């Protein structure tokens, strides 16, 4: 079976790259699932989680300010910041959430909560 070549890239580093059977992401219009052979798509992601069904297990990642493109079984997920669920420092994210609540910064709060949600998956 054909597989997808997936690249998850943040602005300052390559977060993950490998083969996968499916990619799930949430765009402005709603959830989208990409299987091998999907037609070329370029879409904007809302801040949240991206699920990659890799050949060796499922990978969850929190993305912020991202978009994705699919063409010829290549999926690139680009985000200004991206973190794998396993990389997320839960304590730091909790602290960031508390701080954001105190400062009343909705953007930071959303970001911290996304990370906490993804980490708990």
């Amino acid at each position, binding site marked *: 079976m054909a597989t997808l070549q997936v690249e998850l890239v943040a602005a300052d580093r390559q977060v993950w790259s490998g083969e996968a059977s499916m990619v799930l992401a949430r765009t402005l219009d709603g959830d*989208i699932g990409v299987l091998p052979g999907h037609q070329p798509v370029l879409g904007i992601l809302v801040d949240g989680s991206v699920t990659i069904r890799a050949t060796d297990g499922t990978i969850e990642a929190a993305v912020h300010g991202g978009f994705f493109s699919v*063409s010829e079984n290549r999926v690139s997920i*680009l985000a200004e910041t991206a973190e794998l669920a396993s990389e997320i420092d839960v304590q730091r994210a909790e602290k960031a959430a508390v701080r954001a609540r105190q400062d009343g910064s909705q953007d930071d709060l959303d970001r911290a909560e996304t990370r906490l949600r993804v980490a708990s998956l």
Partner: protein
Amino acid sequence: MGAQLRVYRRRIRSVRATKKITRAMELIAASRIVKAQGRVDAARPYALELRRAVSAAASQAASIDHPLLVSGVESKRAAVLIVTSDRGLAGAYSTNALKESEALSRLLVQEGGEEVISYLFGRKALGFYSFRNRPIAGSWTGQTDAPTYEQAREIADALLAAYNTDASEGGVDEIHVIYTRFINMGVQEAAVLRILPLAVVSASAADAPTGAMALYDFEPSAEMVLDALLPQYVAQLIYSCLLEAAASEHAARRRAMKSATDNAEELIKSLVRAANAARQAEITQEISEIVGGADALSDATAGSE
């Protein structure tokens, strides 16, 4: 010990201490170049994928007049972001960037009749401008040796806000960046990059060797995708300029500190020679004084007998 010899010894000690410092700075800068280059490399996949996506979107949305793509009929005001270092002791690194910016400003003012708005990155540029009491539209300092994406984003937001404002209301029609290109360890040069209006259409031709681009579907629409992509593309361009400038800064500092160390070595060598000569002169003088004294003494005793 003679006064002259003491002065020489003191200078040798002080130059040796300076040499130790410059040597340490040279080694630190050398290790940081590698790190900075690593960051440039790490940012490359994002730049590549982003450029591909932007050119895909732009090629299919060619009929759309996106404000970031369209060159203004006549540019009245131009923003210039000058990337320099926070700290000195990097040779002519900051001076070269500032010199390049002066040349660009002159060109813009004389040939285009444009007004130049300055945005500054790095304390050296800030010092240069505030010393001359020039107006500053925005400045960022404190992170020139390891710029973060957040900072690049902040700069991009400020520049985009100015770009999206009408020129008559204090906005700008063009954005240029002056940064120092890292060519190799030995060569870095100040360069000008026009960031806005974007010239992505030419990039699409270079990136599509197979000819036609795949026909993309856009979620939710080509316009909205382009709207979201272009600011990110601008931020990424600025980020890569900052990263490259940081690598150049470390390379310039390493070179400056290497020649400082070499000069200190030369200076120590000539000072040691002078100190040796002074010591020998002192000894010779003492001997001749003793011999002269002994002669005078024996002459005196010979006379009394």
